C-alpha cells in the first residue's frame, strides 16, 4: 500500500518456486497450534475410560513383559543396570516416538475437514500431533523418576547432557513425522506401512538390548538409526550406563538432522496440493 499502514498484501500464485519455510507465518498461527494440541489431548483422555492412567499403564506393562521375557528368560545383558530400569528408560523415548509418528502420519488426512475449509500452515497438523504425545511422555518420564531410586539407580554428572538427547528425540520424531504425514497424502497405503515400520524399527533400536551386545566394529554403525543414539543417550545420561561411542552419537545426530531437513523440504512440496488430494 502506498499510503502506509500495516495492511498485509498477499499475492496468490501457482505452486512451485523458491522453497520458503514461512516461519513467520507458523509463529502467527501459534494459538491454533496450542488449541489443536489441547483438542487432541482432551479427546484422547475423554474417550478412554482409564484416562490419564493409560499413559502410565502402557509403558509400565511393556516394562513388566520385557523384563520377564528378555531380562529373566532370555537373560539379555543390560550394561550393569537392573534390566527393568534399563528397558523402561529405553521404552520411554521409544513409546513417545512410536505414538507420535503414528499420530503425525495420519494428521493431514485426519484433518481433511480443516485442510479443505480453512488456510493455515499445514505443518501445524503434524507438529500438533507430535506435541500432543508429549503429555504421555511426561507421565511416563515421571514414572521413570520414581522407579530409579527404587532400583538404586542414580544419574551421574552425565545428566547435564540429557537435554541434548531430548532435543535429538524431538528432532528425529518431528522429522519422521512430517515425512510420513506428507507421504500419507501422496500415497494412500502408507498408513498400512507405518505399524510394520514401527515394529521393525523397535527391533533394530537398542530398546530391549544394549548396543554393547553388537560386535565392537559394528557398534558405531548402529548410529545410522538415529533412535539408537537417542535411546543409548537416555541410558547414559539418566542411568549412568556406559557412554555410547562418539561415532555412534555423531552418526545418529547427523542422520536425525538429515531426516528432519529432508522431511521439512518434502512436506513443503506436498503442502501446496494437500487440499486437492486429501
Amino acid at each position, binding site marked *: *500500500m502506498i499510503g502506509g499502514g500495516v495492511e498485509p498484501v498477499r499475492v*496468490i500464485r501457482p505452486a512451485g518456486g523458491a522453497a520458503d519455510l514461512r516461519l513467520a507465518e507458523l509463529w502467527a498461527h501459534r*494459538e*491454533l497450534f496450542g488449541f489443536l494440541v489441547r483438542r487432541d489431548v482432551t479427546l484422547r483422555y475423554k474417550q478412554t475410560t482409564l484416562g490419564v492412567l493409560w499413559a502410565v499403564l502402557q509403558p509400565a506393562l511393556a516394562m513388566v513383559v520385557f523384563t520377564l521375557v528378555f531380562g529373566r528368560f532370555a537373560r539379555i545383558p543390560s550394561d550393569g543396570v537392573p534390566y527393568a530400569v534399563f528397558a523402561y528408560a529405553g521404552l520411554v523415548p521409544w513409546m513417545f516416538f512410536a505414538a507420535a509418528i503414528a499420530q503425525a502420519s495420519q494428521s493431514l488426512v485426519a484433518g481433511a475437514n480443516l485442510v479443505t*475449509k480453512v*488456510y493455515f500452515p499445514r505443518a501445524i497438523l503434524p507438529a500438533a500431533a507430535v506435541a500432543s504425545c508429549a503429555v504421555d511422555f511426561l507421565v511416563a518420564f515421571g514414572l521413570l523418576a520414581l522407579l530409579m531410586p527404587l532400583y538404586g539407580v542414580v544419574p551421574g554428572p552425565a545428566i547435564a547432557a540429557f537435554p541434548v538427547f531430548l532435543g535429538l528425540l524431538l528432532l528425529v520424531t518431528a522429522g519422521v513425522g512430517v515425512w510420513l504425514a506428507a507421504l500419507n497424502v501422496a500415497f494412500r497405503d502408507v498408513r498400512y506401512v507405518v505399524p510394520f515400520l514401527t515394529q521393525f524399527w523397535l527391533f533394530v533400536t537398542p530398546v530391549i538390548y544394549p548396543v554393547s551386545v553388537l560386535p565392537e566394529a559394528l557398534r558405531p554403525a548402529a548410529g545410522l538409526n538415529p533412535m539408537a543414539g537417542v535411546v543409548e543417550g537416555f541410558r547414559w545420561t539418566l542411568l549412568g550406563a556406559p557412554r555410547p561411542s562418539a561415532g555412534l552419537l555423531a552418526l545418529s545426530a547427523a542422520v536425525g538432522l538429515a531426516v528432519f531437513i529432508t522431511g521439512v523440504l518434502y512436506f513443503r512440496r506436498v503442502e*501446496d496440493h494437500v*487440499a486437492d488430494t486429501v
Partner: protein
Amino acid sequence: MSVRDVVISAEGLGKRYRVGAHSPYRTLRESIVRAVRAPFARPAADASGVVWALRDVGFAVARGEVVGVIGKNGAGKTTLLRILARITRPTEGTATIRGRVGALLETGTGFQRELTGRENVYLNGTILGMRRAEIAAKLDEIVEFAGVGPFLDTDLKHYSTGMQMRLAFSVAAHLRPEILLVDEVLAVGDLEFQKKCMGKMEDVRGEGRTVLLVSHSLGAIRALCARAILLDAGRVAAVGPAEAVIAQYLAATHSDAADQAVPVRAHFSPSAAIRVERVRLLDAVAGGFRVHWRQAISLAVTLAVEVPLAGVSVGVGIRGPEGSHVFTVHHDDDGARGWDFSPGRHEIEVTLENTLRPGFYRVHVGAHRESGRAGHLFAADVAGLEVLGTTADGRPAVSSNTGVVNGAATWKGPQ
C-alpha cells in the same frame, strides 16, 4: 476506482483438476512396482482426464464492496473462493489481496462433539483466524446470538442440530477480518434465525468491510450485493450491477422459454391421432420455464387432435435430471371421467403442487385411453423445468434438506 482502493484483484486465474479413471491417490506399492519395472520412465502425464474448474478469471473488488458470486453448480464459485482463501493454489494466474482475510466455507469447521460449547467456540474461532483475546472479548455476544447460554459448558454432542448450527454461525458472524469470503452459509436454521443471519450480514456491510459472497440464494445476493460476478463453466460470464447480472443468469440458466412449441421428435411414441403442440408455463419467472421454490407449477398444454377420441386420460409427469421418475399425475386419478376430444386444437390447464427441491427437471406429457396399456396414445418430453433456490419473496430454500422432493417431518428427540 483508483488502484489504491482495490483490495481483491484477480488476473487470469485458472485451476486445473485431474479427473477420470485414475484416482488422485497413488499407492506406494504401485509406484515402487512401476519404478522397479521402468526405473527411468517419468510417470505419464495423462492429459485426457483434465478439467479446468476455473479459467482466465479476472476481476477487481474495491474496499467496502459487497460482491456476489453466482453461477450454476460446478461453475467454479467455490473453487474461486478456495483460491482466494489460500486453501488451494491456482494452476495459473495471480490474485492480490490487501488486508486480513477471513473465509467462511462452512460453519462449524473443526467442531468436536466431545468438547463443550465453550471449547468449540474457542477452537472454531481460532481455526477461522481469530485471536484468543478477541474470542474472549466476544464470547458473551456469540453465546447470546446463538441462544445457547445455559449449555455453554455442556458437550456439543448433547446439543440439537439447530443449536449446533446457530452456535457455528454465531462464531462466524463475529469474525472481524477486513475481507470476508462467504460460501453459502446463510441458509441455515429456521426462518427466524435466517432473518437474524441476514441482519448480521447487513451489519457487516454497514461496517465497510469487503465481502465476496457466493450463494445460490438470488434473494440474498439481491438484498446484500450492489455488484455481482456471474461464473459459467469456470469463466467470468458477466460482472456488473447485481440486478443486471442476476437477470442475465436467469436468462442463461435455461434454454427453454416459458412458452414453447413441442416438436414431433420430442414424442417418444408419436401417434397419428393426437400430440402435444405447445406447452406454456403460467406465472413463469423471468420468461423462462422456471418457478420459484414452492411456487405451484401451472401449465397450459395445447393438444392437436386429428380424429375424434373418447375417454382419454391425460397425464403430466416430472422426471429428475438423470431421468429418474419423480411422479406422474393423471386427470382421472381420482376416478374422474375420461375426456372426449373432437378433431382440432384443445388447450387444457393443470396446476401441480410444487414439492420439488431446487434444481432442474423434465416435464413429460402423455395420454392414453381408459382401456389401459393397449390404449396408449403418446408420451412426450415437453420442457425442462428449473426450480429456483429461493421463494417468490426472496427467502432461500432450506439448504440442509436434500433430495428431489422437499422432505417434511416431525421429530421427537431423546428425552
